[in-house]
């Protein structure tokens, strides 16, 4: 059954790898899978957040906006990665948009279910924490680098 295959794939998602097979099957069974065409947006920047996506197949692009409102490619994420989880915690709007690069198949976990997963499974919570910490560290590095760049330009 497809749900079984999806559950096995969810096991590959680092954040969810600590869940047992029954929990993963239930998660797969109770979530929807959407097929996105190339350049279709999973969500836009500023959208209200309602779910977290697990990329089952394909690759996505994280897109922000520059000062003139033009799209800027920020990052890419491939199969087995989680996208849109930040807004699920913050409960607000999407900080960046995500669109499909080529065909993408993604499992959509409603925010409430996702938060429930974390609060009832300490292992998942820990993984989420580690992942967010890693992202924070990367962002801090980027900020430091940008600051350096600004200083250098000022000096010039």
């Amino acid at each position: 059954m497809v749900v079984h295959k999806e559950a096995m794939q969810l096991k590959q998602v680092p954040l969810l790898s600590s869940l047992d097979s029954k929990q993963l099957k239930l998660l797969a069974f109770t979530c929807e899978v959407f097929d996105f065409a190339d350049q279709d947006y999973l969500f836009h920047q500023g959208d209200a957040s309602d779910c977290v996506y697990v990329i089952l197949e394909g690759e996505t692009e994280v897109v922000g906006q520059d000062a003139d409102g033009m799209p800027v490619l920020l990052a890419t994420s491939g199969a087995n990665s989680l996208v849109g989880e930040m807004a699920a915690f913050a409960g607000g709007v999407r900080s960046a948009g995500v669109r499909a690069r080529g065909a993408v198949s993604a499992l959509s976990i409603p925010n409430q279910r996702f938060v429930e997963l974390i609060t009832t499974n300490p292992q998942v919570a820990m993984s989420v924490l580690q992942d967010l910490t890693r992202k924070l560290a990367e962002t801090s590095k980027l900020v430091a680098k940008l600051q350096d760049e600004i200083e250098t330009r000022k000096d010039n």
Partner: protein
Amino acid sequence: MEKSIYKYILRHTKKDQVYLVLLTLASMPLVYYSLEIPKLIINKAIGGGAGLFEVFGYEITQVQYLLLLSFLFLGLVIINGGMKYIINVYRGVLGERMLRRFRYTLYNRILRFPLPHFKNVSASEIIPMVTAETEPLGGFIGDSVALPVMQGGLLVTYLSFIFVQDFYLGLAAIALYPPQVYLIPRLQHKVNQLSKTRVQKVRKLADRIGESVTGIADIHANDTGHFERADISRRLGGIFGVRNEIYRRKFFIKFLNNFLAQLTPFFFYSIGGYLVLTNELSLGALVAVLAAYKDIAPPWKELLKFYQITEDIRVKYSQIIEQFAPDGMLDAKLLEAPAADATQPASPLTGAMRANRLSYAEDGVARVDAFSFEIDADRHTVILSRDGSAGDELTQLLARLLAPTAGSLSIGDADLNALPESVTGQRIGYCSATSRLFNASIGDNLYYGLKHQPQVGDGDNNGAGVDKNTAAARKTEVKESLASGNSTQNIDADWVDIGLSGAADADEFRRIVLDIIECVELDDELLTLALRTEEDIDIPERLAGEIVTLRGALTEQINHIESGALVEPLDPDQYIHNLTVEENLLFGTPKNRVPVADFLAVNPLVKRILDSSGLRRDLAEIGLELAGLMVELFSDVPDDSELFEQFSFIKADDLPDYRRILSAAGGVAAGDGGDDKTGDKTANIDALNPQQVARLSAVSFQLCPARHRLDLITPPVQAKVLAARKQLMDELGADNAQIRFFDRNRYNPGMSVQENLLFGRITYAKGHLQPRVTETIKNTLKSTGLDREIMLAGLNCPAGAAGSKLAPNAQQKLTLARALLKHPDILIVNNILSGLDGKSFARILDRVIARRAGRNLTWALNDPALAAKFQQALVVEKGKLAHNDSPQALAESLENM
């Protein structure tokens, strides 16, 4: 309202009670004779010896005499029974009518409660008072006079008999009545007080449970379940304590009564016996007195019981009416419609609104402190209250929802507080963020401000085609309503007075309705709702035809979004992967609007087709796998989890049943990691009884391959479903009374308008594109001009409890539209739509201002930047009127500050 229940009863049922007493008294001789005749039968007819008996001058034999008396006895029994039946029914009807009157009176009083009173009492306190607590009153009212008359009469008769036998024994018989009459009321008084406490405690409990229900999310979010349970436990304990005390006292009273009742025979035996021994009394007389005393006991007991019930009811009545007489109730006369001609709309309010030292205080705190101002009838005024104070109170005073505690408020020459509600409610519009939507259709909510009186008389002349039965039923309804002092107006009448909106005819009214919906920007949400709702929204035939015609063009439009897999068309020759098995089988919607599953479960033709095609067996095998999967996935899920409701094929309560079925089938279950672990399915199905097989097939009926992503509906099963569908269609024919089959050339009211337009299902895999599909449909509809007609049909969508089917902003837009639609002379808007973004809010404000050109508009809001849109600005600060001038002057003074 009458302070005493007896006064209340007499006022409304004096005639009936007299009639009832007469009936009761009339039945007494019959009772007496029904006791007398058996005596005659035994003493004379049987024990009187053989011979001839003379009856009314005729001589008859002993057997004939016996038969005559026996039939006379039978006749009396029937007449007595009949009398009892008449009296009981009369008592019942009388009681129920009074109960109906009482509840209606209470409801009427709720309508007259001053608004602030609702801050102190909650719905969960008031509701049981009107419903449950009044219930015993009905039974009591029927008995209130007749019962004491009847039992008292019996008691007096028996006592007289004893006194005739022997005066002293008579005295002995009533010797213990004085202590009983003295003691019992005193003991009862304490019980009454406890009953009062109990009622109050139960009301408070109801209130707290009500709070828990409304605040359930906060209880979970704060983990205060333990705290709340402790509170409820304390309250339940309190009620237990009171009841315990009541029981002990009540049963002590019972004990005392029983003891005293048994003490009298003691006197008879000792004193009477002594008198017999001393030859002062005959033995026969003593036996007769003892027999008579036995008959005294029941009426005396009944009278004491009646006294206890009366006391109980007296307490209940006084406690209920206390709660329904708060200070500051609206004058009943103001609530009633003017008697002259209630069907005519109230005459317009003209002239300026003048407040003279208008004040309103709550709990001693001045919320509106001596405001004096004037608002012209055609002016647009903004009420600014930066600290959020007094906006509520001032707008509610202007709408006459609150009564001023001092000062005055007038419109033209009329004192606002002396105007009847039929004038204020029709000529003044008011809406606020807390304005309530009712659990009816969106249209009913929108037209709520136009429903003041039935439009044709009492609505009874409404519709010439009313059949005889309906007319007769309505006549009885009116008669009964009159007998209980209830409203006789017909709720089924047409209440919507379209003239109030300024419309001359129905067409113009529809145009005004749509304009207002667009004015408050509710159009988009209403159109979406109309397109997506599964409810039958009564699409007119012509519109349905246009929708069918549009199908082809729309399919092309949708293909522009994404060609191919976006919508799966409803092709009668294909298995539709985005429909459930049952929908695939039926390929239509039941005409009697029952759920598809219920239709299939009972339809004999479907049963026959399922069984003969072998499909039932295939589906049961699939059901077995599914049930195994459900048991595996959901066995650890809490019963009350939403997951069960939304996703499980099996309800939480039914899970154990399916476990049993699975184990009867040999424990084979899908899951445990494999497609290949299903074992020998045939053997397993054979082990089950037909009922179990039917339950399993019902499980797989709900399976939708595209949604559930379980590859269980194999191509051979799909082929069987298609064959069964075809057989069903062939046997029933296209125009049958049961199913409306999906037909590309016909509108199907069982589907949403959107599905009718698409004639297909948006695939689950492309569910994220649903908003774009809806957007495309809307654009197509707008270009053809059908959007407005569909919106009108959308007004038939249910709004849900408190408007819950609409987003919070849309709910407020609807209340604003409701206030606009009645085209009031004065429109007061109190801090509405604050959840909207600034731009949208300003846009709606501009539209409303334009719509109200030349008519009054008074809007309370918090943003001073919007004041420039108005002609006058009142600024309220800490309960004082800080500014009353033009907005320009206000802006200048703000700049200077």
